[in-house]
């Protein structure tokens, strides 16, 4: 069984559309890989226990907390970080634009979790209820706003995406 033990692990990750072949030590978290090795510092380090959500990324279309995700377990995953939400030319996504327009954040340390959870929510359900919004954002702590501006921004994002969908349909 000794031959099964690896000192480093080879992963092929597609991060924000770009393919990375990486040889990584087994104990490295996805957070450290993104921030220290790939300089993607938009993913924030907060609590390191999985409570706060500041380190949120999307793995194969589902949000996850990168500080408690072991990078070596990810194999060939597709990862989107907060840097991957805007278009290449810098145009913000509908969700990002709504948070900007509604002043959804104050310090924005929690932005990765709020934006990626809202994006996953609206991808699966274009017309969520208040309860759906609360469930989708429950894994994120904001210590500035009291959440009301965040809820307002999510509602603006819903309206904006519906407007975009209507325009496409016309």
């Amino acid at each position: 069984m000794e031959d099964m033990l690896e000192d480093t692990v080879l992963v092929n990750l597609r991060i924000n559309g770009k393919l990375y072949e990486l040889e990584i030590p087994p104990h490295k978290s996805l957070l450290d890989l993104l921030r220290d090795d790939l300089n993607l510092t938009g993913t924030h380090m907060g609590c390191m226990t999985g409570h706060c959500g500041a380190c949120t990324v999307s793995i194969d279309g589902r949000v996850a907390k990168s500080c408690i995700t072991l990078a070596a377990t990810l194999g060939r995953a597709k990862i989107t970080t907060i840097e991957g939400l805007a278009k290449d030319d810098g145009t913000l996504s509908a969700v990002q634009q709504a948070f900007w327009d509604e002043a959804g954040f104050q310090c924005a340390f929690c932005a990765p979790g709020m934006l990626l959870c809202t994006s996953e929510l609206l991808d699966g359900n274009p017309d969520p209820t208040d309860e759906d919004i609360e469930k989708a954002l429950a894994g994120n702590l904001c210590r500035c706003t009291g959440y009301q501006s965040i809820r307002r921004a999510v509602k603006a994002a819903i309206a904006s995406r519906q407007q975009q969908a209507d325009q496409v349909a016309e």
Partner: protein
Amino acid sequence: MSLHPVFARPRNLEQAGEVLGSLSSGAMIIAGGQELMPSVNYGMLMPEVYVDIGQVKELQGISESDGEIHIGALTVHRDVQDNEVTQTKLPLLAYAAAQVGGGWQVHNRGTIGGNIVSMHPLYDIVPSLLALDAEVDVLKGGKINRIALASLMKDASHGLGSEALLVRVIVKPITAAAGWAYEKLKITAGGYGSANAAAIVTKDGDNISSLRVVVGAVSALPHDLSGVLTGLVGQAWSDALAGEIEAKVSAAVSNPLSDHQGDGTWRKAMAGVVARRAVAAAAFKAQ
């Protein structure tokens, strides 16, 4: 011995059993990592070997056969919530999985197997599984043995040993006429509970004909209090019965937890409150 941990990626159940059997207790299984990684980040656990079981197909998926529902140990909370089989046949478990703390991010990666073997007193899944008389398949020494989940809940460690692997959870559906409820007393939506209770109630006319109540997050282990309440079976729901359930459950919690979720005296009182609420909601749903 290397300075940093090494990694093993078994491809199937047989390999997983072999690799776990060949390693010392410094080897740790990683599935979703939602329990393990916070402990590693804070230096409470320092695995020498990570055994990544994520590729093992036999540990995946939800299926139904011969009146039993099999839930692979790697099934994440989000899938327990959204799967058609669990939603229709095990609604109590599907609902409890949606109450797990940490939000979607944790629901997307945390597994039912990890939730069980972590033996965390504040976690949400085990009380419902105990109320449902769940069993588990455990791989050890090349053989799979089926045991009652309740038999693992004897002390703060499950007693399976580091060479064992939880393969799947087996649950029988509750009857359509049975009522169920899971009550979690919590401070924030995404947080831990200060007390929780799972209840399953059947009725004969207006009278309660069977009653299962398991209380969690108030003592080191989930507490099956159905036995304490057997004297109440046969009665119809009333305010007096509700008061009696609350008093008996609260009195039965002999060694309450006292932590950042609340002190022991309060937790003991809240055990009765969540049990009363859960039985009331389950009795209301029962036909």
